[in-house]
């Protein structure tokens, strides 16, 4: 039984368990993987300026950043990606890179740089959740970090103004949403019938854009046209975050499954070895006299299924 885990994150509003993308990613993953965590919102505490959120505390360790936290949870056997193939795991990494590069700058801009949204939604929310006198500091710190990040990563030179990159970051973001929509299609989740870490990431990025009441957002209007993405967010909220019914159980990892996984890994390793041996045989003509079947020469003592 794992030690008790505590998750520090920003609190919720707008129908979401958290308004903060990274916190939402981790919260969604804990639900998908069945990890029991105590959620401690940092709202109204000094941690709003001192802590990096989300942060997972377990015993003596403190883990930050969504990717690191998800890795940690997997090691504790809370693994929502258990049934993914290696190729699906690779696809997950690629789509997360797409979200970070193409969607994140526009989301930062929508919430923290766009004057109307910042003044009417973002700043009041964060200011109201920070204790005095931090309510003057927290929103503006986050806003300037967001602006710097956009300019540094998307601007052609460090001295460019934000207006010159706005067009590009929004068109990239709209394209990213379209690509996600194509990929999701009519399925409930991105891989099969149960949600995985990719679903958590997409939910974390898209849900705040879907749910916040933004006075000015062409990106939000674009998202509303992509029915399958909005349906995706709503169904995760209804199934995993509704207080009415309990969460569905995560994929159960019993000891037998662990053995099966080990066996599969061994078989994969063996077949990789066989492939390598085969390549070597083909490329060294002087060894053509060897038996074509290299399997008996693999003198490992591990058990494996017959070829």
């Amino acid at each position, binding site marked *: 039984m794992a030690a008790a885990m505590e998750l520090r994150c920003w609190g919720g509003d707008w129908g979401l368990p958290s308004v903060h993308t990274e916190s939402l990613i981790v919260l969604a993953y804990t639900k998908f993987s069945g990890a029991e965590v105590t959620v401690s919102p940092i709202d109204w505490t000094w941690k709003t300026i001192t802590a990096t959120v989300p942060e997972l505390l377990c015993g003596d360790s403190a883990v930050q*950043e969504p990717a690191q936290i998800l890795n940690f949870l997997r090691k504790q056997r809370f693994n929502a990606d258990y049934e993914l193939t*290696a*190729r699906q*795991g*690779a*696809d997950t*990494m*690629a*789509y997360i*890179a*797409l979200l*970070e*590069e*193409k969607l994140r700058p526009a989301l930062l801009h929508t919430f923290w740089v766009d004057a109307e949204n910042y003044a009417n939604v973002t700043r009041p929310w964060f200011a109201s959740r920070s204790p005095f006198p931090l309510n003057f500091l927290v929103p503006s710190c986050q806003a300037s970090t967001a602006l*710097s*990040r956009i300019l*540094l*990563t998307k601007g*052609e030179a*460090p001295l460019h103004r934000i207006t010159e990159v706005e067009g590009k970051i929004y068109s990239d973001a709209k*394209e990213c949403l379209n*690509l*996600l929509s*194509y*990929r999701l*299609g009519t399925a409930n989740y991105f891989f099969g019938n149960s949600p995985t870490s990719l679903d958590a990431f997409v939910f974390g990025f898209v849900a705040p854009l879907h749910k916040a009441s933004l006075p000015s957002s062409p990106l939000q209007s674009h998202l509303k046209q992509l029915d399958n993405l909005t349906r995706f967010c709503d169904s995760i909220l209804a199934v995993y975050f509704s207080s009415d019914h309990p969460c569905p159980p995560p994929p159960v990892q019993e000891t037998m499954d662990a053995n099966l996984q080990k066996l599969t890994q061994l078989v994969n390793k063996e077949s990789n070895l066989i492939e*390598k041996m085969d*390549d070597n045989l083909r490329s060294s003509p002087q060894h053509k006299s060897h038996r074509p079947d290299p399997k008996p020469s693999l003198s490992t003592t591990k058990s494996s299924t017959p070829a």
Partner: protein
Amino acid sequence: MKIERVNYMKHNSINYQPETFSPSSAPVSGKIPFIHVGNQVVSELGPIVQFTKAKGHSLSDGLDDVQRAEMKAYMELVNNMLLTAELYVQWCDDATAAEVCSSSGLSLKYIWFVSGLLQVYFRFTSGLGNVSRVYEDVSQCCQALSQRLGTQPYFFNKQPTELDALVFGHLFTILTTRLTSSELAERIKSYSNLLSFCKRIEQSYFYDKSS
């Protein structure tokens, strides 16, 4: 980066005349690689792909929407991990910087300036603080690419696409550029299907007498 562009043109069997880069012929935006077609100058891989598509040459027409989404996602992964690693090793590693300085004639102050800018950039994006994280990212990226490629000749089976051009460009650059540490190249070499992918493209497209 230049290699991706050249590679892309080769895939499309477009006749072109490679020119050695000289600053006076660079486009206003100052970015290489660029192609010069009649009166037009198009720079960077993205716009070049669009340009050739408008002229009727496209590598990704045969892909459906889901495949195109996958292709773009993998291209971002490569940019995120491999490009960052290359920049880091070229500019932020002291030993490499010193060697670049002595061979290219760039002053050390210039190199440190670029390195400083990049450090700030990395802090905002991937939090890169040290070289081991760089190598770890490269390994993860290569593992994902290797799994995606599998035993296929190209990433989307029989026909090469922009993704193949991009991956080849980066991997080939890393494998052939002499750096003070061969760690980056070694990490790639441990994925045999990626290595044979590079060799295959090099032999098919760069040693052909007919374009």
